[in-house]
């Protein structure tokens, strides 16, 4: 069977942010079937559609740019035109909040998204329970970054907890914008540059919870809105490449 490997970039916003990572394969498979685009299936006893994603996005977190690799059964002539047409057909079958941004063909030996993506950028809108000055905020971040080790506790399965040092996973922690008037609730826009991939990762909410605990920053955690703004492949020279644009 001739198959065709493609990579798509898409957003995950609005209600779609509540679609869990494990449910995404099913969602895409069904959308493709409605669009009458034939996905390739794995061989064997229990065939599953060849659809693969990058690092999981936590439920409730929006994203401006996610990636998915799909293998299709169809062969084609004019590749460029086919891709555009396919993206159009598929978009009609995707839920609000999932917008296809770009598509590219993958070469035969191209590595899986999970194998290559190692950096993630997030932006968070962070409200505070009480007034916070720019200095307090800045100092808290600096102090936190100055720590050699930051242990956080994670619950694994039932009752099992383990500790993990998340400090090595945080490359940058920046304040992009603050809104700290006396009358209104204080808010800040923060930026996170994080290491991700098979060796582990850290969630922005975990960092914010840690800032609240270790640096006494009065973060209103349930009010935080996190957006993943990009996923990257870090090169030997430190350059960050977009996993889809690098195929073009």
């Amino acid at each position, binding site marked *: 069977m001739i198959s065709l490997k493609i990579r798509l970039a898409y957003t995950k916003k609005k209600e779609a942010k509540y679609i869990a990572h494990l449910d995404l394969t099913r969602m895409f498979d069904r959308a493709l079937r409605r669009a009458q685009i*034939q996905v390739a299936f794995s061989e064997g006893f229990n065939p599953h559609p060849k659809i693969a994603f990058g690092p999981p996005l936590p439920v409730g977190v929006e994203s401006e740019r996610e990636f998915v690799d799909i293998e299709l059964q169809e062969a084609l002539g004019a590749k460029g035109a086919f891709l555009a047409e396919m993206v159009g057909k598929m978009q009609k079958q995707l839920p609000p909040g999932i917008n296809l941004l770009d598509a590219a063909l993958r070469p035969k030996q191209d590595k899986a998204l999970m194998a290559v993506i190692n950096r993630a950028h997030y932006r968070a809108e962070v409200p505070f329970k009480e007034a916070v000055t720019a200095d307090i905020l800045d100092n808290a971040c600096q102090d936190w970054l100055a720590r050699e080790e930051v242990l956080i506790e994670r619950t694994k399965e039932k009752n099992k907890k383990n500790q993990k040092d998340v400090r090595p996973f945080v490359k940058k922690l920046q304040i992009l914008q603050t809104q700290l008037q006396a009358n209104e609730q204080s808010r800040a826009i923060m930026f996170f540059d994080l290491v991700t991939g098979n060796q582990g990762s850290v969630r922005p909410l975990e960092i914010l919870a840690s800032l609240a605990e270790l640096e006494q920053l009065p973060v209103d955690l349930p009010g935080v809105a996190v957006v993943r703004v990009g996923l990257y492949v870090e090169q030997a020279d430190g350059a960050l490449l977009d996993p889809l644009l690098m195929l073009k």
Partner: protein
Amino acid sequence: MPEPNNELLQDRELIRRKIERILPEVMKPGRYVGGEWNIIQKDWEKTDVHTVFVFPDVYEVGMSNLALRILYGLINSYQEFLCERAFAPWPDMEQKMQQERIPVYALESSRPLMDFDVVAFTLQYELSYTNVLNILRLSGIPLRTENRGEQHPWIIAGGPCVYNPEPLAPFIDFFLIGEAEEQYPAILKVIQQHKAEGRTKEQTLVELVKLKGVYVPGFYDFEYKSDGTIARVKARDGAPAVVTKTVVQDFDAAYFPEKVIVPYMEAVHDRVMLEVMRGCTRGCRFCQAGMIYRPLRERSAERLLQQAQKSVAETGYEEISLVSLSTSDYSCVNKVLEELMCEMQQKGVSVSLPSLRLDSFDVKIAEQVQKVRKSGLTFAPEAGTQRLRDVINKGVTEEDLLRTAEAAFEAGWNGIKLYYMIGLPTETYEDLDGIVDQAGKVLAIARKLGRKSARVTVSASSFVPKPHTPFQWVAQDTPEILHQKQEYLKKKLRDRRIKFLYHDVGASFIEAILARGDRRLAALLEWAVQAGCKFDGWTEYFQLELWQQGLKETGIDPHFYANRQFELEEILPWDHISSGVTKDYLQKEYQKALAAEVTADCRRVCGRCGVCPDIARTVKFKSERRSSG
């Protein structure tokens, strides 16, 4: 316990914002956000009657329900009606909602139930009754009809449990008995007209009660004898002495939803469900569904194939299931299976059958059906000896079972599940030994075929006598006896190749009380929900001690309902509700059961149960030819 009612949020925008804040802290937030594929969001202002279909269990269970799919699509197909959905919030969500004063809301519009004209519950199992009341409580709607006014929505209910509606009678304005496809729209038309004319609920009820299948519990009065049994039931003028179910006459042509909602989180039954037939002709004497869904009506193969095509195109589902009470009995099952599998394979769509009742099933076909392969083969002999199988009229012999087991092992299956019931009428320990024996024989066949790793799962549920069945009069074994029987089997089935599963005895006991209860049980339900009983069908939430305390506090004798042999002459709490099957027939079936006499499948010999032809006619298809009787 403080009532959360007074200050509940009403504004849908505010509700939506508050939900957004609590969702990160609850399990499976996908249960509470809506927005699924094929959701129908109609304009509130442009529709006359606003209804919400409430499934009183968690989202992924409710979304698996065929009645929800049918009625959601059907009611929304009327321009003037709107139908949204609501489910029971899981306890973690309930707690957060109460903290934030969020009422139960409909997923389509985030509006609280209080905003709707009609709140329609489906009653699929007795152990969901506390959830019904809890949803009202969390919505700030008074539980009892007498405490609700004109400003409150109609609280109505349908589904299989309404064949004994009495335990919920004081809470529900009216019940819809039978199949809702034809009658529910007719009811909504009356409500639409009366709403426009500004009539009172009382006036509307007087009009509604004229419709077939509508039971208004407030129009009936019960008097009791000193021994607690019913002395008489009096129907108010204009209300029928007996309410007979409504039935879809032309099932083949009946409305069927192809564009169903596709959830993003996995539902329990997350696939296209094609209803191949309604009703069952086997006549198992313990089975309520087998009685109340009569007569048998099949859908034509042509129509099913069309529905399959459209459903896959609209939903993108990767699996189609042929559902009914007994799909292997469907006249065209082979034809439909073969054509579907042939057509769907290249679309990556598999075809499955519900696992139960594969007794008479052709293993060659089962082999091709993927889902069966994954989940293992299931047989339901229900009882361990031929004598007891004759008592319950389960037309399966041990030979059938062993032959199919042999074919299954030969075809490559490695595990077989056997479903039994314990506590059946006339059961003795010999019958329990029969279960042990059968499991051993199945294993022996596997050994003979060289399958050393073969496993047998024995699942034993406890018999619950159900209204409108030949066993409706029978006393349930006491919890102590059921427990002893479970222990006995547990001891005898100690074999590492056998896995023994059994149900919580306490839950079956409460189920029996509610199944055969009358309206005096309302006090118990009210007590239970205030005390925190909910999700009683879920082992992790069922609280027997609380129920027992409730029985004590309300002075209700549980054994009167669960463990008492009802007299044949006695007026039963559900005698004023008719499924079309006559009490006379049920009584004859019961007497035949005690004599271990079987009754033939009514496809072969009509048993004169009373349903055909007055209620509706049996409809079967044989290739292209249509026969009725």
